[in-house]
């Protein structure tokens, strides 16, 4: 059976996806990281530290909450929210950052860098860098700096240096290019904490494993509550780390349906979206082969999404593989659908979700009403929406009497 769990292979491949498409300068380091990570996986002391920080510092386990009012509202499936927004720093991102910073320490690295889109990964990285006393540089697109101001301020408070990236569209992809450039230049002392299940091997597998705590907990919690596994799992997909984290521990349970929700922007047909699987083709970028938004000449095209954390023209390679295998269903939600679901969640549950997360909720709005109450649906509430107040005010301001910028 084990058809999905033993990947990637030794070369970092999930089928034909993944790999290590990086400059030679980085190769020795990437191979070293792979060895260190493999050792850490089997090192009880590393695992003990990881568990300690996940518990007392991050606040795990996060609750699996039965969203009674949301369930009533949609009038179908029973909806459970995996409350990753309650983690320290307000999103799932820190699960991975804690793991990587422990590795950085172990490898004797003296400096941390990261890219960020919504700023949640940047904040989580700046947080663990502060906690472990390491200087930290965060690359963030100029467009994203504009639309995620609260997170920019948080990162500065935490002592990180923010480098605005103006190349390209000034979003996540450009921030990642710039972080990679920093990395090859400072390869000796710097650890690059990639924020999602993308990049060269071993990152996609390593980030997935650090995030898999989400799915492992969900499994235990659902069995405690309902005595059985959930029927479906729903998560938004930017690079795909919160989705992989929830899905992976269920990947060989064929009865558990999995749905990944890409950012549909103004609609996949409009061309203005960030849906790499639903609207892209295979290619090679940022160290791995995966589905990308690109033109026929292999030039990467701009992604469009109301949510900075999903505004990326690629997706983690394991998702590309699961998509082609048909194990996970990938759909998309538009900006407007996400905004609508965002408001429903605020009003029905008193939880302000991140705009990224609102894409998952938009799919719940479509799917839950068609299903019976016995259907147990888990949604990854990947982050909280405080950071999105400015964007949402901009889009919904009139309705609430808030002056638009």
């Amino acid at each position: 059976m084990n058809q999905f769990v033993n990947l990637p292979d030794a070369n970092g491949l999930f089928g034909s996806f993944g790999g290590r498409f990086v400059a030679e300068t980085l190769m020795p380091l990437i191979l070293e990281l792979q060895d260190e990570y493999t050792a850490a996986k089997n090192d009880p002391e590393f695992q003990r530290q990881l568990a300690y920080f996940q518990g007392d510092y991050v606040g795990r386990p996060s609750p699996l909450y039965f969203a009674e009012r949301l369930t009533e509202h949609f009038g179908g499936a029973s909806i459970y929210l995996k409350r990753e927004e309650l983690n320290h720093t307000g999103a799932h991102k820190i699960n991975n950052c804690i793991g990587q910073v422990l590795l950085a320490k172990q490898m004797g690295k003296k400096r941390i860098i990261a890219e960020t889109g919504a700023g949640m990964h940047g904040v989580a990285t700046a947080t663990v860098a502060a906690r472990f006393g390491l200087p930290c540089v965060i690359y963030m697109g100029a467009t994203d700096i504009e639309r995620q101001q609260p997170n920019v301020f948080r990162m500065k408070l935490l002592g990180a240096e923010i480098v605005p990236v103006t190349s390209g569209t000034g979003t996540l992809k450009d921030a990642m290019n710039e972080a990679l450039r920093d990395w090859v230049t400072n390869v000796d002392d710097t650890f690059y904490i990639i924020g999602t299940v993308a990049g060269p091997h071993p990152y996609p597998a390593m980030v997935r494993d650090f995030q898999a705590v989400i799915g492992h907990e969900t499994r235990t919690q659902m069995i405690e509550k309902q005595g059985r596994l959930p029927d479906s799992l729903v998560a938004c997909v930017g690079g795909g780390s919160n989705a992989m984290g929830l899905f992976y521990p269920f990947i060989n349970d064929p009865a558990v349906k999995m749905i990944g929700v890409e950012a549909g922007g103004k609609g996949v047909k409009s061309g203005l979206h960030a849906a790499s699987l639903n609207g892209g083709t295979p290619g090679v970028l940022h160290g791995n082969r995966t589905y990308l938004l690109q033109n026929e000449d292999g030039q990467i095209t701009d992604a469009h999404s109301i949510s900075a954390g999903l505004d990326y023209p690629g997706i983690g390679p394991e998702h590309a593989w699961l998509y082609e295998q048909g194990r996970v269903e990938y759909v998309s939600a538009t900006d407007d659908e996400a905004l609508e679901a965002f408001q429903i969640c605020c009003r029905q549950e008193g939880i302000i979700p991140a705009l990224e997360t609102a894409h998952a909720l938009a799919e719940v709005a479509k799917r839950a009403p068609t299903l019976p109450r016995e259907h147990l649906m888990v949604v990854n509430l990947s982050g909280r929406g405080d950071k999105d107040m400015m964007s949402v005010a901009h889009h919904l301001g009139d309705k609430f009497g808030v002056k638009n910028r």
Partner: protein
Amino acid sequence: MTTTRLERCFAALKQQNRPALVSYLTAGDPDAETSRRLLHGLPEAGVDIIELGMPFSDPMADGPAIQKAALRALEGGQTQAKTLEMVRSFREQNSTTPIVLMGYYNPIYCYGVERFLTDAAKAGIDGLIVVDLPPEHDEELCQPAAKHGIDFIRLATPTTDAKRLPKVLGNASGFIYYVSVAGVTGGSAPTPERLESAVRELREHTELPIAVGFGIRTAEQAATIGRFSDAVVVGSALVDCIEHANTPDEAVERVHGLVSELAESVRACRKASERQAC
């Protein structure tokens, strides 16, 4: 056994006891016509081997100068097909100067590897430098290229240690490109002493000629490094000439002007050092 253009070029330079001058320009920068004029004038200005960049939207290993060059080229409508066509038309007039295409894998992958290699061989391309294809991915392009008689030029870097070197040299052909500093193109200048020992070290493991690039901007630097390497590569400094020019004519004049200076210095560099040694 037939020799390749690159082999003939390096053999001739060995006779003359001087290093090769390798220029880098991005195809289609600043526009198709100016780029064509730039390319066609390079051998006359003194370039021995031409590196022609295939523009990519996300040049992760390049600094600002070459990033901007790629953007200018793409905004001007440059495509893989147009780059191959540029080389084909260059070959109608010049059948001796080796041309190596340099860039990233994705535009080749999307063009289709087999189709690309067929068209590249037909156009008269001698080698490929693909920054994001380490030896771990040799089956993607390196091995297929060999079947089409196209050299796959491998990068060795300051981080390539003794353990990794055999892997890097394994399927290498044409020449070895030693990246002088860990970093992106257009970055800081390398220190000649460290470089010289790195090149000497490399020579013990390969018979292939060794080119040095990254951070070489001036005739002096080219001369210093040309004393102990088989080729010096100048890229960002040439690309900067294009950025700073106000007109296409000025771009052509400035680029070819700098090439001439560099060419003069690589032609004199070993003579000067011999004299010093005496």
